[in-house]
């Protein structure tokens, strides 16, 4: 057994409408914004080796590109030179490219059939922004990412945030981490995923985390409400192109947090609302709010078993489906907070913990930076 299946994007997408997965998830945040390298998250994931089957692993790291922090860092998978040509032509049409390079990798026996992996540090051309008075810069980036992933054959933008990056592929997470040399990056927040896909063979683009702008999502579970979540998102201009249920989680967070301006807590209520019986028992102000969120975002309700970690510039959120059908442990030690599918994975890198607990079903564990970032990411307001 040494040839791992590595289908192309088109092949993978032709196989199934969506893919869902069991898996391992993990995350580490330093609340003081102090950075640390990727070796610890690597050990965390290696500890949960048996939760993956070698068909996908990945990492998202925040704070790793301080020298390019104001530029979008596009990580791109390209099947071949033609895909690269088509992608770069598209990119140049809308963006100034400051730097472009191959994503450094270490040749590894376990990692095979890798696509071309490149990264581009870019800024949106002002001219493009001027053509769309009703869209923000981020709206346009979202649109472009969807255009590439949906329309350009053999090209996938798998990371599109600023001062953060996603590294993922087909393999066990610890191998993918070594392949991408993540020990060489320094970030204040890391999240990771090891995959056990059930509905399709693995492909590089289908690995987690799924990213959009600064959001990165890793997901253990199956979104049984995918069919309606996907149709609901289409209402708001999000087109699912990666054919995996994790994608909808990413887009829903982007819509609720960035577009609709909800707080993290409210967004989590929209995605995994309390039961009606519990809503009825809330005090009136809260009840009205939760009821409004639930009926308005009925199409956004995530159902089925899941444990999700959402990474964003200011921290991470761990949360479970409403009846907690998947594991999610949270722990704290000093300035560090941890999330993982298994407590053992957390103890692996931090044997002594101040506290450790299980996330409740439907109730998010919100982990946030306690300090402002050096240069807060703030999009200029637009009329």
């Amino acid at each position, binding site marked *: 057994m040494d040839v791992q299946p590595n289908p192309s994007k088109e092949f993978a997408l032709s196989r199934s409408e969506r893919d869902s997965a069991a898996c391992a998830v993990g995350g580490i945040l330093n609340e003081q914004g102090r950075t640390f390298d990727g070796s610890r998250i690597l050990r965390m994931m290696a500890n949960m080796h048996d939760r993956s089957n070698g068909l996908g692993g990945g990492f998202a790291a925040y704070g790793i590109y301080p020298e390019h922090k104001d530029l979008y860092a596009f990580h791109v998978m390209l099947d071949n030179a033609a895909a690269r040509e088509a992608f770069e032509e598209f990119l140049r049409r809308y963006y100034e490219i400051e730097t472009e390079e191959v994503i450094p990798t270490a040749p590894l026996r376990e990692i095979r059939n890798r696509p071309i992996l490149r990264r581009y540090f870019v800024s949106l051309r002002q001219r493009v922004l001027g053509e769309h008075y009703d869209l923000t810069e981020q709206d346009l980036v979202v649109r472009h990412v969807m255009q590439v992933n949906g329309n350009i054959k053999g090209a996938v933008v798998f990371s599109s945030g600023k001062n953060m990056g996603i590294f993922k592929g087909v393999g066990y997470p610890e191998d993918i981490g070594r392949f991408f040399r993540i020990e060489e990056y320094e970030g204040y927040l890391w999240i990771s995923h090891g995959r056990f896909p059930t509905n399709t063979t693995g492909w590089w683009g289908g690995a987690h985390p799924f990213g959009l702008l600064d959001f990165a999502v890793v997901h253990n579970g*199956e979104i049984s409400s995918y*069919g*309606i979540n996907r149709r609901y998102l*289409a209402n708001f201009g999000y087109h699912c192109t990666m054919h995996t249920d994790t994608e909808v989680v990413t887009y829903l967070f982007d819509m609720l947090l960035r577009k609709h301006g909800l707080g993290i807590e409210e967004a989590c209520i929209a995605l995994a609302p309390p039961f009606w019986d519990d809503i009825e028992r809330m005090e009136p102000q809260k009840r009205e*709010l939760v009821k409004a969120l639930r009926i*308005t975002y009925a199409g956004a309700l995530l159902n089925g078993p899941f444990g999700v970690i959402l990474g964003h510039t200011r921290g991470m959120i761990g949360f479970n489906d409403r009846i907690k059908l998947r594991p999610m442990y949270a722990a704290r030690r000093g300035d560090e907070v941890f999330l993982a599918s298994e407590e053992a994975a957390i103890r692996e890198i931090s044997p002594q913990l101040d506290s450790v607990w299980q996330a409740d079903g439907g109730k998010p564990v919100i982990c946030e930076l306690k300090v402002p970032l050096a240069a807060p990411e703030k999009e200029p307001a637009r009329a």
Partner: protein
Amino acid sequence: MRRWLVQPEFKVERDPARCIQCQVCVRQCANDVHSYDEDDELVSSDGASCVGCHRCATLCPTGAIAIGRSQLDFKPNANWTPENIRNVYKQAEGGGVLLSSMGNDKPWRVYWDHLLLNAAQVTNPSIDPLREPMELVTYLGRKPDQVRVERGPDGKAKLATEIAPQLKLRTPIMFSAMSYGSISYNASRALAQAAAEAGTFANTGEGGLHTDFRPYASNMIVQVASGRFGVDPDYLNIAAAVEIKIGQGAKPGIGGHLPGEKVDAAISRTRMIPQGTDAISPAPHHDIYSIEDLLQLICAIKEATGHRKPVSVKIAAVHNVSAVASGAVRAGADIVAIDGLRGGTGAAPTTIRDNVGIPIELALAAVDSRLREEGIRNRASLVAAGSFRSAADVAKAIALGADAVYIGTAAAVAMGCHLCQRCYTGKCNWGIATQDPFLTKRLNPDVATRRLTNLLRGWSLEIKEMLGGMGVNAIESLRGNREHLRAVGLSDREMAILGVKPAGE
């Protein structure tokens, strides 16, 4: 009427070994099929006027009565069916429009029977509704695009978006519009009581709201149809919601007619028309000749109700149903009810009932898709109507995109209806579609209420089982989730319209 060419449809057979001459059948048949000869001390039957309602057979204490199709066969002819031949006989004799009742009985494709639901295995645990919460609560009405939240001085989040009025349903099944007049007082009362008990809604139809039913008004949707019978500000304001009836699936483009004989004192008061006069609902609303007129009526009703009630627009599923529905939503409808080809009626021209409109499955799928394409799906809830026979039909409709369904025929059947399709004669032996005091008292509303709530309960439990099987625990995760449907035996084009994949894919 002399009907010598029209032969009986049914044959009534009495088993002499079982008949005890008790005459229950004689007393129960409003069509005088059974008679008792005092001289001979013998009950006998004449099937000529039998409508096949089974009232006699159901009440016969010894099971002595059997009702079968008449054995008088025509020479087999795939084109000229016995029904076609009989209809020509009837019209040659009477020269009129043939009437029918209940829904379309022709073998048009029932798409529900070509759609299969999903269930979870291994990767996703199915959920046991007896042990875990399983939520069917549904809110009907306009939803905002997004919710805005503001924080008070105490830091607590507070809702800053005004939510339009909503109907809260404990289960996504409502009772379709059936007017007091087309159905009896007792049947109307049972529907209202059952809706209140089950936490759902009954629709008055265009018959006004009898004063006795006012206690149930918070579980009633009042209808404003082309005849405007029974409509006044009080009627609009006392109800939970107002429905403008544009069309009905059983007779799209056709009005209604309650004969004067049925307009007794109570119905006259409720409909606000003189006793004994025909209640004629025109084919169109004569103040709605276009979509902008509909907008005005919706606005007028909202003004009249202080914007406190959702306004529904009920349309028949016709060829351009998605355009009509989209127009209704843009005209301000908070709920769009679509009534399909197989929807029922108290009376309709047979040829209209059987040949006009499109199946609800295709209409519903097309409308849901269209509203989503236009980005206005959240502006109105969709209610599907037109023959839901089981909980599975309801679940499939919800998966196609319905927020809730209306049941009319199923509700009537729960009350005892045997689908003899003779509502228009006013001689309903089951006491449902009649105003004859001999017959109306046959429907004890408390019994009927219990049967209706039992049906809703049974179907709700089954829907919960199906949801749990799919591994979801809230109805909104099935709503519009066509991933949970697969088609068997449909063409690519049909599957494209339904938005479903073939089984196996």
